[in-house]
């Protein structure tokens, strides 16, 4: 009892304070690759704190949707954060089918981000929303196929049981299925978090933006929430990858926690490297990438059945 | 005695109206005659009549059924005509004073058809109906009406002549009995039927089917029917469709009875099926996107004759369905023609495209027309639905699922054809006339609201009770038959069916 309480406390703390660090890591890696010194690892925290102290400016075209949009998004992300297992094998909130709740909460957040963007009536933000919606819709099959790979062996649609039953002994080349899942989830992660090669987080030309352009009009605390929210999203998908890649003990332990944090940082570094080495894809070819991801995951799933795993 | 009364009453009445030509008098005679006739029919139902004239005249259940139908419809149309004639009509009538006498003579001849047991006499009667109704079709002084009349006369006369040949063939076929050629009395023929020379009997039936079928309106012999029905004044069309076609059908049924008596009626059933389906197909093709709504109703009669003969062709339980459908169709179609008359009176044209927004302009007529359309189209819970369902079911039961499906499909298509024409007439804002695109997309004929103001609004007049009560009565009957078959009717149908099942 006590133990699980501590576990949940740790989970909450990680959820609250860890995400922004990942952004810092990515940016630092990128600046290293570019041969610059780069901003501090904690730049994200500074930004959020600064924004939280500011006032707000709203367009007179906007309605309460614009004001509550970021909040709903953040709330949805946070609750899905409670579902996803971080340092231990299970989040505070777990039940059969929580996998789906997780995925659909992300979708809920997306819905309100786009709605808020459209609320401004700016054609640029509308454009961004359209792109985001399309990409994430196409990302869904890949996501669910990978989740299926995660859950089918465990006969359960719950993170806790699924992760507990991952066949680590046969992990690796003997069982490439999970590699497929990792690749697919990786692509999903880059898409969902508006990363190269799908989107360029620090482009300055609105016409080329996807995610950034949707939040052009937000300022003050709202923007802070949005920043934190996107970092949170990054953490969530990253944690899935980490759990696929590292055998983190299902009952929380210091070792597990450290493994997890290390894994997250590692993946952040990988993202940073990808961002600094790869160019961004043309918008038209993004769907192909996502469909490709879905196909990869599907092959993995088929292999799973071929092996007669379930 | 009553039989003679049935014949003489209309004849005398018509003579009377022929001599005294005052319209009011004529109409009152017409009404009185119709009611008296109805009374006589009831009387015939209550007290069974012995045969008369040495078996020339008798009233068997089949004839009685048809007689009842005729007299009901006749009452309806005579009520309708009462106002119809006194109101001014949109065309100059050629000879209004001939209307009532001819109508009454027609009634007499139709009675004779139902009464006569002698095949040749029945032939004479049926031919007589043609001659009596011809002047009625040429009621309006119109070239088109004249053309229709001519075609009606010639085609029906030629066709019926063939039926006469068939009648003689029956005699020849029966001639190898011990007592030589039989008398052409139905009962005698039925007795000698088993011994008839088959080929002659078959030939006789084919001739009768083609001959009387021409008058009954079986495709492809129906060609006169749409012309005549569209040109005749609406009450006459009602009588033609509701009464006259049945008379021709009765002629065929008599031959069918003999075939049944002879023991092998299978060939007759096949013939019924073939002509029935031909009628269904052709009628459907002409119903869809039909431009003249009276022709539409005429083709629907062809379709229903097809349904009836399909029912006869299937035999067994379907025969009951066919008889029931005869009843339903007569009532429903008569009502529809009367209602069409109301529309015609308002809009002054039988062009479907000239009628628009009926529901706004003549709500009562239009609603009744809608009900009638649904009924004749076989939509539940209305009369024809029941009879068609019976036919369909017995088709399935007797192991012809494909025939059943074909039948149902054709009926459905026909209904859609009806709807595709009638709905645009009734729907729409009555303000503007719509434009039918001839030949364009017949299946889904959609009508757009452009065009000029219609004559309808000048003519638009209140729908008087005389025009509404007769169709209303008939439709009530149709609706009731859809929900409840009164036992007397069932009994009558069963008795008639007994004659038609070997």
């Amino acid at each position, binding site marked *: 009892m006590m133990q699980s309480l501590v576990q949940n406390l740790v989970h909450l703390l990680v959820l609250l304070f860890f995400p922004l660090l990942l952004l810092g890591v990515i940016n630092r890696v990128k600046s290293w690759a570019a041969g610059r010194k780069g901003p501090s690892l904690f730049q994200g925290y500074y930004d959020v704190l600064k924004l939280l102290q500011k006032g707000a400016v709203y367009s007179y075209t906007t309605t309460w949707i614009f004001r509550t949009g970021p909040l709903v998004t953040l709330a949805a992300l946070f609750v899905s954060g409670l579902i996803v297992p971080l340092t231990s094998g299970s989040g505070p909130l777990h039940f059969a089918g929580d996998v789906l709740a997780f995925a659909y909460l992300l979708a809920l957040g997306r819905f309100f981000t786009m709605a808020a963007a459209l609320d401004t009536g700016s054609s640029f933000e509308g454009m961004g929303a359209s792109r985001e919606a399309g990409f994430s819709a196409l990302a869904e099959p890949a996501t669910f196929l990978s989740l299926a790979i995660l859950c089918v062996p465990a006969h359960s649609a719950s993170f806790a049981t699924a992760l507990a039953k991952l066949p680590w002994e046969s992990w690796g080349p003997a069982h490439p299925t999970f590699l497929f899942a990792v690749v697919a989830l990786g692509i999903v992660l880059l898409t969902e978090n508006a990363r190269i090669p799908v989107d360029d987080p620090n482009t300055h030309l609105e016409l080329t933006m996807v995610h950034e352009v949707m939040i052009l009009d937000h300022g003050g605390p709202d923007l802070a929430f949005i920043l934190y929210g996107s970092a949170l999203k990054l953490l969530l998908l990253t944690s899935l990858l980490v759990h696929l890649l590292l055998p983190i003990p299902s009952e929380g332990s210091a070792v597990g926690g450290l493994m997890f944090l290390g894994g997250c940082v590692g993946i952040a570094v990988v993202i940073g490297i990808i961002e600094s080495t790869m160019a961004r894809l043309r918008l038209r070819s993004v769907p192909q990438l996502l469909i490709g991801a879905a196909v990869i995951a599907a092959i993995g799933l088929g292999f799973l059945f071929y092996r007669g795993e379930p | 005695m009553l039989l003679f009364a049935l014949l003489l009453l209309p004849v005398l009445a018509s003579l009377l109206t022929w001599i005294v030509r005052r319209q009011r008098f004529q109409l009152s005679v017409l009404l009185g005659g119709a009611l008296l006739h109805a009374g006589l029919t009831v009387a015939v139902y209550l007290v069974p009549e012995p045969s008369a004239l040495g078996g020339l005249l008798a009233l068997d259940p089949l004839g009685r059924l048809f007689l009842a139908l005729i007299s009901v419809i006749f009452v309806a149309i005579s009520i309708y005509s009462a106002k119809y004639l006194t109101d001014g009509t949109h065309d100059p009538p050629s000879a209004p004073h001939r209307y009532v006498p001819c109508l009454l003579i027609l009634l007499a001849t139709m009675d004779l058809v139902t009464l006569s047991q002698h095949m040749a006499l029945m032939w*004479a009667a049926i031919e007589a109906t043609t001659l009596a109704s011809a002047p009625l079709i040429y009621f309006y002084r119109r070239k088109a009406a004249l053309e229709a009349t001519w075609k009606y006369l010639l085609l029906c006369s030629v066709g019926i002549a063939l039926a006469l040949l068939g009648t003689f063939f029956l*005699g020849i076929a029966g001639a190898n009995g011990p007592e030589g*050629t039989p008398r052409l009395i139905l009962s005698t023929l039925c007795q000698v039927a088993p011994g008839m020379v088959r080929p002659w009997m078959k030939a006789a039936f084919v001739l009768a089917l083609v001959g009387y079928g021409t008058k009954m309106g079986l495709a492809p012999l129906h060609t006169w029917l749409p012309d005549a029905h569209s040109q005749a004044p609406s009450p006459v069309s009602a009588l033609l469709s509701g009464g006259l076609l049945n008379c021709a059908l009765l002629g065929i049924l008599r031959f069918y009875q003999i075939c049944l008596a002879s023991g092998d009626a299978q060939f007759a059933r096949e013939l019924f099926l073939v002509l029935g389906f031909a009628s269904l197909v052709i009628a459907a093709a002409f119903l869809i996107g039909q431009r003249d709504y009276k022709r539409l109703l005429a083709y629907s009669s062809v379709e229903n004759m097809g349904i009836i003969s399909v029912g006869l062709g299937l035999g067994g339980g379907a025969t009951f369905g066919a008889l029931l459908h005869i009843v339903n169709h007569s009532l429903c179609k008569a009502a529809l023609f009367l209602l069409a008359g109301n529309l015609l009176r308002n809009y002054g044209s039988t062009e479907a495209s000239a009628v628009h927004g009926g529901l706004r302009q003549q709500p009562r007529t239009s609603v009744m027309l809608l009900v009638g359309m649904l009924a004749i189209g076989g939509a539940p819970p209305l009369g024809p639905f029941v009879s068609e369902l019976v036919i369909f079911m017995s088709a399935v039961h007797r192991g012809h699922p494909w025939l059943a499906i074909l039948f149902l499909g054709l009926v459905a298509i026909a209904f859609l054809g009806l709807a595709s024409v009638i709905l645009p007439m009734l729907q729409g804002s009555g303000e503007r006339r719509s434009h039918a695109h001839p030949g364009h997309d017949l299946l889904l004929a959609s009508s757009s609201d452009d065009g000029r103001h219609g004559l309808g609004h000048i003519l638009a007049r209140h729908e008087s009770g005389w025009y509404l009560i007769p169709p209303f009565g008939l439709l009530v009957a149709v609706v009731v038959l859809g929900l409840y078959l009164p036992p007397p009717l069932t009994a009558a149908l069963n008795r008639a069916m007994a004659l038609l099942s070997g």
Partner: protein
Amino acid sequence: MITAYADLLLLFLVLLDLYIIGTGRLVACVRGAAAQGALLSLLPLTLGHHLDIHVGHTLLLFVGTLILKGLLIPYLLMRTIVHTHVRREVEPFVSLHASVLLGALLVALSFWLSQRLTLPRPPPSSLLVPAGLSTLFCGFLLLVSRKKAITQVVGYLMLENGIFVFAQFLTREMPIVVEMGILLDVLVGVFVMGIAINHINREFDHIDTAALTSLRD
């Protein structure tokens, strides 16, 4: 030996068929039809005792047929011709010569058919069936190949005549009432048709039925 007369009559009947088909003059057509009627009226007399029919019946039939078919009906037609001032059948669908040939063919056909026919009992005259059939066929030929309304009526008459020939089988069984009824029907039929033709002539200024095609789909 009486049947010999019958055969003669029937032969004449067939010849008249060809004559009617061959002529282009309406009056001639009608006269031919009248002659046919007369012949038919004689037919029962010649066959009468062979079919041992009651003499009174036969006589009545003879008189009735003669009056109706031989006199009244032709008279009506003649009157119509006079009223409508139509003299001859111009441009029929099938030219006159061709239709004569056709008629001959039809006659041959009907003889062939009647060769193959077996009647339940021997007919009073071996020519009865072929003559009846050929008259019937020729009537139909006239009906479908001529344009003038009157000629079509004549064709209808021939049709009736042909059928009337078949009636000879059954004269004994036919009540006189019915016989008369049938004849009356034909008469009234022709009468009504005559009226119709007059009307047509008045409305259209011609009686060319091929031109009556306004009612169509």
